[in-house]
């Protein structure tokens, strides 16, 4: 009686380029694909996860080889030709699948390791599967365990605590200077891709207003519209400094556009409210001296890069800890699965023994007509007590020691099934094991 296999098929940002991922993403929501998967007979429990960086399907089956083809065909057949699919799709089974799921949940497999979004997406994906009743005993337990692992990683390591990209580093620094970023405003001087990205992150973290200053006003107006902000010309730069808190500068200018001398009166006007300059232009736009002013902070691209490197080193250290947690929990879950494996055998064994007991008791009582009901009860009790005592050791033998290697467990299950002849009469019934 082979156990069902847990299979995980998927693509992510590591294996698959964005153009292909875009086509594979389940953009229409989970409902339809979950319904479609029901048509594949070999799937017992399954769920789907689709985010911008990954599409994964996890299922249990007793025919892993056949179902792989069917599932891939059904989910991605229209988007990508099957030959190409094999190049992108990774497949994990059992312990590896469990470990991969835990890694994903704890954000160790994410593009930005430690980001918190994935857990929410995973919960959403699971909710859909649970509503459609496509998850069962194993998957419910597995997904809940995954949420638990993610929480453990988050509380026991500092994996999510540090910023590992330039724009995240800028946000983190801004937080250390301003505390809350609500009601703060950011000014973009010059429009570059990196400046836009940093501005986007700041807006995503609470910054409310955006001012764009550019040499060509048209460009400024266009960019400002994207952020619901306003545009200003380069000549107004110094005046605009009154109204903003964070300045991201990325002009193509060869000289500096702002010096300490320009800033002094501005700080007086601002009543010394802090200013945070982020200079990501090369060559630099801002005079290094302005960092010397009180309540003015200047970071250039190298400074930010240093923050990122520092954080990356810390994150790598934390990732090692996190992976240990994942491994530990994978082992725990696997041994739970193994213990599940013996359960059907134990149930069958009991059922068989009870059946024998019932039949024999009826036979005997048929002959002993003079027994009072009380005496009949005693006899029944005795018979079932004998059965229980006889079964005690075989059951203990099955359950014995979780740390044991699973091959030995298989051997033990087979031994017991053979001795008690469970394979002949119980074969059909065990098909529907939990």
């Amino acid at each position, binding site marked *: 009686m082979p156990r069902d296999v847990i299979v995980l098929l998927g693509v992510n940002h590591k294996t698959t380029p964005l153009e292909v991922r875009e086509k594979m993403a389940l953009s229409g929501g989970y409902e339809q694909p979950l319904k479609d998967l029901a048509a594949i007979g070999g799937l017992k429990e399954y769920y789907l996860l689709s985010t911008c960086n990954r599409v994964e399907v996890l299922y249990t089956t007793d025919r892993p080889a056949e179902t792989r083809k069917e599932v891939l065909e059904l989910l991605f057949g229209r988007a990508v030709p099957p030959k190409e699919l094999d190049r992108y799709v990774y497949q994990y089974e059992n312990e590896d699948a469990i470990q991969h799921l835990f890694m994903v949940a704890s954000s160790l497999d994410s593009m930005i390791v430690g980001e918190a979004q994935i857990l929410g997406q995973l919960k959403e994906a699971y909710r859909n599967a649970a509503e459609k009743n496509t998850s069962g005993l194993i998957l419910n337990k597995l997904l809940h365990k995954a949420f638990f692992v993610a929480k453990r990683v988050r509380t026991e390591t500092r994996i999510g605590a540090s910023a590992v990209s330039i724009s995240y580093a800028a946000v983190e*620094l801004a937080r*250390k*200077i301003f*505390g809350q970023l609500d009601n703060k405003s950011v000014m973009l001087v010059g429009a570059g891709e990196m400046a836009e990205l940093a501005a986007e992150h700041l807006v995503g973290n609470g910054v409310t207003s955006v001012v764009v200053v550019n040499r060509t006003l048209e460009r400024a107006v266009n960019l400002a519209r994207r952020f619901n902000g306003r545009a200003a010309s380069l000549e107004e730069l110094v005046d605009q400094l009154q109204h903003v808190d964070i300045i991201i500068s990325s002009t193509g200018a060869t000289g500096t556009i702002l010096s300490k001398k320009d800033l002094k009166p501005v700080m007086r006007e601002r009543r010394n409210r802090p200013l945070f300059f982020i200079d990501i232009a090369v060559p630099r736009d801002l005079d290094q001296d302005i960092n010397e002013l009180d309540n003015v902070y200047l970071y250039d691209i190298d400074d930010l890069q*240093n923050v990122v490197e*520092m954080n990356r080193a810390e994150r790598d250290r934390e990732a090692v800890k996190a992976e240990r947690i994942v491994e530990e929990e994978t082992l725990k879950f696997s041994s739970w699965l193994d213990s599940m494996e013996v359960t059907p055998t134990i149930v069958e064994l009991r059922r068989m023994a009870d059946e024998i007991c019932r039949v024999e008791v009826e036979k005997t009582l048929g002959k002993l007509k003079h027994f009072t009901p009380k005496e009949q009860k005693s006899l029944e009790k005795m018979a079932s007590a004998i059965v229980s005592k006889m079964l005690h050791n075989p059951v203990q033998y099955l359950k014995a020691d979780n740390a044991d290697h699973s091959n030995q467990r298989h051997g033990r299950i087979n031994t017991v099934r053979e001795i008690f002849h469970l394979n002949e009469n119980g074969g059909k019934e065990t098909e529907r094991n939990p």
Partner: protein
Amino acid sequence: MSYLLFQISFLGYFLAMAAYIVYFVSQKNQVRLIARNIILAAGILHTLNIAVRYYEAGHTPITSQHETVSFFAWSIVWGYLSFRWRYTVKNFGTFVSVMTVALMFVAALASREVLPLVPALQSWWLPVHASISIIADGFLALACIGGIMYLLQEREIKKKRFGLFYSRLPSLDALDKLNHHCLSIGFPLLTLGIISGSIWAKQAWGAYWHWDPKETWSLITWFLYAALVHQRFTVGWRGRPAAIMTIIAFLAVLFTLWGVNYFLGGIHTYAS
């Protein structure tokens, strides 16, 4: 009895400090909660200690060196706890507990003898003037601690070299707000303390102001804080200059409290 309570609360503060330092290094939240409970318990015991001593001495226990410094530590702890109730400043507790333990240590070294009250002090102005002044000093001490934390954090951000403090201390804005809060409570109390002292002086010695060294120094202290508060409100002084000024002004507070007695003497020196 009161000494036993003093010792227990001293021990409590010490344990709280140890726990806060462990928290500072490890950043484990459970440790912070433990430290917080210990400091709260120690603060309550300390309150009991002062109450019992009041009962035993028969007068407000803010006259001897031991009593004054102990009451100073008490004000810092309760000033801190009252803040904690309103808003949190990350790792403030670590610094506060170190300062508290240092003060309690000074108090433990001083003579614990209950001295009979000299006639000049036998007035209901004693509890009013002394407690207001010391509680003011407590808040000013908290402002000073905030200032130190600000300087530590600002240094790392300005120099772009991130060490022990960057991730552990709160934002500059939070520390500057802390400074503002503490000053806006401490400064009015300091003013009240001086006014109440002056009225008492009129009753006891017949004149509002004697230019006794303690009075002179408390006036100097008051001017330092007045300048700081004035600058904050008018031209928006904040950040590093404000933090440095807070620390300097607090040194003046400490000198008024101790230095004057040791170096200058004067009519405020009752027990030595």
